Structures are given as C-alpha cells and as structure tokens.
C-alpha cells in the first residue's frame, strides 16, 4: 500500500475510477455536481487513461449513453448528484432491467424545491425501486475502496446489475481527507477485465431491452427482483476478497460498540462518523448505546440487520429524507415493515434530520438518544425543527 496523502474526496473518487481501466465515461457536469466529472475529464484528456469521455447535453443523455456503451461490452462510469439523478430517473430501471453493469457515483445533495444544493438523501431515496445496487460510503477511504469494488460487483457474472455509490455531498465530496490509494498493480490483481454476458455487435445480431407483452412482463420483473436479492451473496464475497487483499473490512451492516447495547442509533453515510463520537461519549458516561450503519441499502440486508440489532430495545433511525404524507422517513418505514413480524423487535424511533445541509452534531445525537428514551410511540419527528 502507498502512503497516505491529503486529497479532496470528490477528486479521490475520480482518481479511483482512473485506476479501474474504464472504457467510457459519460457525464453532464453542471451544478449540482461534484469534482468527480471535472477531474475524471482531466485524467482522460491528459492521456493518463485510454478511455472515451462523452460530454452529453443532460443527465438523461449521460445515463443513456452509459447504457448504450455498456451494451457493447464497455466498462462504464458516470457521476451525478441531486437534480441530475432525478433527471436520470426514467432511465435507471431500464439499465437494471437490461442487466447492464453501469457504475455510478452519486454526491448526495438535496432535491429542489425549494432550491437547496446541500447534503441530504432526498436525491437517492426516490431511486430506491429502480433495481440498482445502492451503497453508501461513510468516509473518503470508503469512497475510494467502494468505487473500485463497485466495478467488480456490478460486472460479476452472478450479478450483472448497475451500482450507485452514494457519498454525502460537501460533507464527503468537498472534504480533504488523508487517503490511501492502492497501486495500479494491486487494482489490476483485484479487478479482472469485464467479461460481458452478451454484447451488441453487427456480426452477431441480438436484441436488448425488448418489448414485453403482459404474458411475460411479470416473470421478467420477478427475475430482476431475484437477481438483485441474490446479488448480496456476491457483494459479501467481493468485500471479503477486498479485506483479504487490502486489510479493510466491508459488511452490509456495520456495527460499533453494539455489544450489550439496549439502544442503538442507525445511520447511513457520513453521519456514522459523528454518531460514533456520540456513542463514545455516551459509553464513557456508562450508557449502553451502540451504533449500526447501513452500508447496503439495496438489496436490503435484513438478516445482517437482525443480527446487528440483537438485544436492542430501542432503535433510533436517522432519516435524511421524508416520504411526504406517508409513514415518515424511508429508512425507518422500511425497517418497521421488515421487522413487523419479529416478536422481539425493538421500538423504532424515527428522527428526520440533517435535511438540506443542516449540521447534525455530536450533541444532537446525544440529545436524540435522550429524546428517544422519553418518546412513547413510534411516530416520526422532525428533529431540531423550530416550533
């Protein structure tokens, strides 16, 4: 392994893509974006890698160009954020239905309106049902590692599904962190060339993205759902391979000081770092508090979550998005529904917070743990909202 260097995480994500022998990148680099597209363009145009960088006229086009390139057998990457991801929405389920292993980096930023460019998860949550593998990174090192892992996961013969790696906008993408890069030789050893299941080629005519009559549509969707569910096994396998080669472990659900904890905080993304400091302080004060971090959002790691929250009486879920007029935040809603039949399931407290770039501090987490203890029901609450 090389030595640690200080680098902005967005730029580091592009550098990680640069190590992955991509063939095509198609990106629309208007704000809201991150430095990923800009720096990847530099890497390509400085001749550091042999790839095609397609400048398109919109995100709808960038994801469409990625789908087309991927169908020819190319290794493909795109990056987006917020409104850009919303504009890709129509194409996302098509990419997964065609089983094209497109890899995307998404800088999580709020969706308009009102207009706001800062960090939360309101951009990725509406993409939940697109059939993509959805992962969340907690820090810059995870962004590098998981970007490289994404290609291996997406392209694996037992997966063949697109992946989106979420990294919190600003909190991660614009932060300079001490980071360690694997060498090109190490990445080459970890990441084999893509072996496509099928490719579009005039010499061997075939069709992708075919029309489905009502007689076959249901079967096709069940096949896609099953492929996504089954991908978890391969994701875990690839994460174990990464740990073996690089020494850093990745799990679908990460735990921190959960042993003996009767109350646990559940986070996704960069917030886990702050929450872990809050857990340290609460533990110092003798309170049995633990932290659970969801790394994999789709496919949802239910068994791993059950194991992680064993013995937990109160689970405090941190939601950075709202399902308006529904049951609260998407993460808590889903966990409540999945654990509905579990006899000894914890009481689930849902806090909506950290919206549109509002900071959530260590003190806030400690305060939320206190509030959760007093809450009688499982209704959701906008934490810190001015009444």
């Amino acid at each position: 392994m090389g030595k640690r260097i200080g680098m902005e995480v967005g730029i580091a994500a592009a550098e990680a893509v640069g190590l992955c022998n991509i063939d095509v990148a198609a990106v629309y680099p208007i704000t809201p974006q991150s430095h990923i597209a800009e720096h990847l363009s530099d890497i390509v145009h400085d001749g550091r890698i042999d790839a095609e960088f397609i400048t398109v006229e919109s995100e709808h086009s960038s994801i469409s160009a990625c789908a087309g390139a991927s169908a020819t057998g190319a290794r493909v990457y795109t990056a987006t954020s917020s409104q850009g991801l919303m504009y890709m929405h129509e194409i996302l389920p098509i990419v997964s239905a065609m089983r094209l292993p497109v890899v995307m980096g998404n800088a999580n930023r709020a969706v308009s309106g009102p207009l706001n460019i800062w960090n939360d998860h309101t951009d990725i949550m509406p993409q939940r049902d697109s059939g993509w593998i959805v992962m969340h990174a907690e820090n810059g090192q995870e962004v590098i590692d998981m970007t490289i892992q994404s290609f291996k996961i997406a392209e694996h013969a037992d997966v063949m599904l697109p992946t989106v790696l979420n990294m919190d906008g600003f909190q991660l993408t614009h932060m300079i962190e001490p980071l360690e890069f694997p060498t090109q030789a190490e990445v080459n050893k970890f990441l084999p060339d893509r072996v496509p299941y099928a490719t579009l080629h005039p010499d061997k005519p075939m069709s992708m993205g075919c029309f489905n009559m009502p007689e076959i549509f249901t079967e096709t969707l069940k096949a896609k759902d099953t492929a996504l569910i089954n991908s978890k096994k391969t994701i875990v396998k690839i994460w174990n391979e990464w740990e073996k080669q690089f020494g850093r472990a990745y799990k679908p659900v990460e735990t921190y000081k959960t042993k003996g904890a009767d109350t646990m905080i559940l986070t996704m993304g960069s917030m886990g770092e702050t929450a872990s400091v809050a857990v340290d302080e609460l533990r110092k004060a003798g309170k049995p508090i633990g932290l659970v971090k969801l790394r994999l959002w789709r496919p949802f790691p239910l068994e791993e979550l059950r194991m992680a929250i064993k013995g937990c009486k109160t689970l405090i879920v941190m939601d950075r998005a709202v399902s308006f007029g529904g049951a609260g935040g998407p993460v808590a809603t889903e966990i409540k529904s999945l654990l509905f039949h579990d006899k000894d399931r914890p009481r689930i407290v849902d806090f909506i917070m950290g919206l549109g770039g509002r900071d959530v501090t260590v003190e806030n987490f400690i305060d939320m743990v206190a509030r959760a203890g007093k809450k009688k029901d499982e209704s959701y609450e906008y934490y810190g909202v001015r009444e």
Partner: protein
Amino acid sequence: MKQKKWPEAWHEVTPGCMVFTPGSASTYKTGSWRAQRPIWENKQCIKCGICYMFCPEGCISETTEGFFEANLDYCKGCGICAHECWPQAIAMIEEEV
C-alpha cells in the same frame, strides 16, 4: 426443438430478457389487438401503393394482380391506410367479437 413463444416461468427468462434470435418479434401476433379491419374494394383501387407505404406495421403487401392486402396476424386496425387512400378504396369494418 421448437422455440417457445415466451418463457413459461420467471426463472427461464434470460438475463435482461435478451433475445438471441433475430426477427423473433414476428412470432408475436399482435393482430388480436384489432377492433376494426381494413377491406379493399379493388374496383376503386388505382394500385398507387399509398396504403402499403403508410402502414406503420409494415403488414400490407402487394398481390400478384398488383392490388394490396393486409396480413391480419399483425394488422392492429389503426385505419391509417383507409385514411390515406384518396380514391377511398379501403373501408374499416368492425371486428365481430
């Protein structure tokens, strides 16, 4: 082995529902969608072929006598041929259920 029209079960669906047999869309007979069918009155037909050119389904063909007819396996009964036929040689009649 005779190729199936479509997979029987979900686990028989190829990844991404990819199709490796070119031209297999012709096995989907969409004519059952039709509510009306085109009928040619050849006495009025001037053999201009405008029906053949405008048919969005490509299911109209020329007969050996130079007149035109629709392949009812694929004709969806849109009526574009009848609309475009300026000598009014094509009538759309209701399909009986």
